[in-house]
């Protein structure tokens, strides 16, 4: 009986983390699908979002301001990284691009430790979000619902843009047939650069809202990048719907894993990945390429 009553709560916990993960994964997976570039520094951009937000809060005390400014800063960094670093190594191949972004992730992590220190930082939640909400017989922290709300809102907008507007159609087309889109006279490298900016901004936003919830610390980039890579493998490389499904599965696996098999919980997502690889190597919703 007691187990039954915690199921909705655990489900919500899993959903909140899953959707936050998807917010970070969406940019990563679109970039990967479009250009074959796997951005190892994507987790570091997410971490920067959290740290920028911490500093903006320290200076201004405005949480809502930090929700706009921090993602913009991180998105700008994404654009700079693409324009001035990634483009230079493009001709050496994808593995080399991965090396570069790995180096960037390494430097960003060390810089974060240098500037903000090794200790976890406490980020204050705005007063209006700090309580909890009663719904039927469930009491749930408002802030987590807020994370869920923002994540769902952002990717609803994202899906609408991607599938209903011209810009979105260009992006989705470029993900599957990059060369063809280029041949049609669309500047794919420019689209790619802007996508890098948007992807970075989404990661930054996830950092801002995830920071107070998942603890802002220098290890948060390494933690999420591993989950992100599992999302990409499980969902299918480059598939946005696959990333959504995989993020959801990983969120729920972690949430119920801790409840049911605490010793094994952290290994579950890797087991899921191993099973997917054996049964369906192209990922749950990936193309057989």
């Amino acid at each position, binding site marked *: 009986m007691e187990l039954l009553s915690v199921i909705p709560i655990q489900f919500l916990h899993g959903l909140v983390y899953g959707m936050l993960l998807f917010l970070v994964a969406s940019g990563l997976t679109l970039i990967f699908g479009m250009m074959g570039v796997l951005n190892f520094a994507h987790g570091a951009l997410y971490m920067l979002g959290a740290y920028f937000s911490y500093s903006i809060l320290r200076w201004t005390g405005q949480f809502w301001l930090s929700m706009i400014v921090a993602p913009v800063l991180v998105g700008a960094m994404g654009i700079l990284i693409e324009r001035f*670093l990634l483009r230079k190594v493009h001709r050496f191949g994808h593995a080399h691009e991965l090396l570069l972004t790995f*180096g960037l992730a390494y430097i960003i992590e060390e810089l974060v430790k240098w500037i903000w220190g090794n200790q976890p930082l406490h980020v204050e939640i705005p007063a209006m979000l700090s309580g909890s909400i009663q719904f039927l017989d469930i009491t749930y922290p408002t802030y987590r619902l807020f994370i869920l709300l923002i994540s769902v809102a952002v990717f609803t907008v994202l899906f609408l843009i991607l599938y209903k507007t011209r810009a979105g159609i260009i992006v989705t087309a470029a993900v599957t047939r990059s060369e063809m889109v280029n041949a049609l006279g669309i500047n794919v490298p420019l689209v790619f650069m802007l996508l890098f900016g948007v992807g970075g901004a989404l990661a930054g936003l996830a950092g801002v809202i995830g920071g107070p919830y998942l603890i802002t610390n220098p290890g948060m980039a390494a933690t999420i990048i591993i989950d992100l890579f599992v999302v990409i493998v499980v969902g299918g490389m480059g598939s946005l719907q696959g990333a959504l499904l995989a993020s959801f599965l990983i969120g729920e696996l972690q949430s119920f894993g801790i409840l049911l098999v605490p010793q094994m919980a952290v290994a579950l997502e890797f087991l899921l990945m191993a099973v997917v690889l054996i049964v369906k*190597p192209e990922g749950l919703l990936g193309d057989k390429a």
Partner: protein
Amino acid sequence: MRGSRFGWIRIALVILVLLVLPKLISEYRLNLVITMMIYSIFALSYNLLFGQGGLLSFGHAAYFGFGAYATVILVKQLAMPLPLGILLGGLAGAFLGLAFGVFVVRMRGVPFALLTLAFNQLIYVTAEKWRAVTGGEDGIAFIRPNLNLGGWEIDLWGTLNWYYFVLLVTLICVGCLWYLTLTPLGRLNLCMRENEDRARFIGYNTYASRLIIYILSGFFAGVAGGLAAAFQEFVTTTFINLDKATDVLMMTFIGGGGTFFGPVIGSCALILINDLLSTWMERWAIVQGLLFILLVLYAPNGLSGLYRSIRERWAKQKTGATQP
């Protein structure tokens, strides 16, 4: 011919220096050299994939750590002689290489990198959670036992004897890895890096060949892990974590994967610089990261590749000047 004889002389000189080194430097420095040798084996095993095979792995610590745990558990629980424990540590690494290799060698490029990283994490969380066997984050401590050779007891605990033991193992491993580059399998590894389809058209079973190379790479990583655990008389999850996996990538890349001894240069250089600078420069890691990025951008073959291209350009200028 002249060049290769010169090469042999150079190698003999290096071995000679290594043999007399304990007379020349302090015990502290000797310990540093031991670390360099162990990580040289690790980096060379990694380069079998990275430089020679063209495969970027983010999960080589799995084999290093697996070998380390195997060695410690066998030596401590079963009172095995240390050399046998280290050999079995290597075999444990090879076994893990087989188990994971079956899946990963189908991939190349980015998917290969992703998968190796995920498998590394799987081994890492297993080591962290399976406390009964691994001791979790506390790890397992043990003492290097003496080696009993038919009644002749050799003390491996003292730094001097231990140095010579590691030197012997290192020379054997480096010799084997060097010999491997001369064998058809070693050549095929380069060939598959350049054009795997062509290798397959000629009639090679590229899947089996890459699997064998992956297993060999796991073996030498396991040996390095066993040595490292025996050196520190301790094994813990830091032997398997992502930092360990990226350390070996850094060493190999900075030294240069394109030459055989590049990874050795990389691991020696990074360990030495780390030791020299970490005491008065806390933020050495940032400099190391910047060096890494600069090499990625401007010298994709690392320091040894940079040296080689500078020397070639210099030689070209020289011949150009004498023969107008």
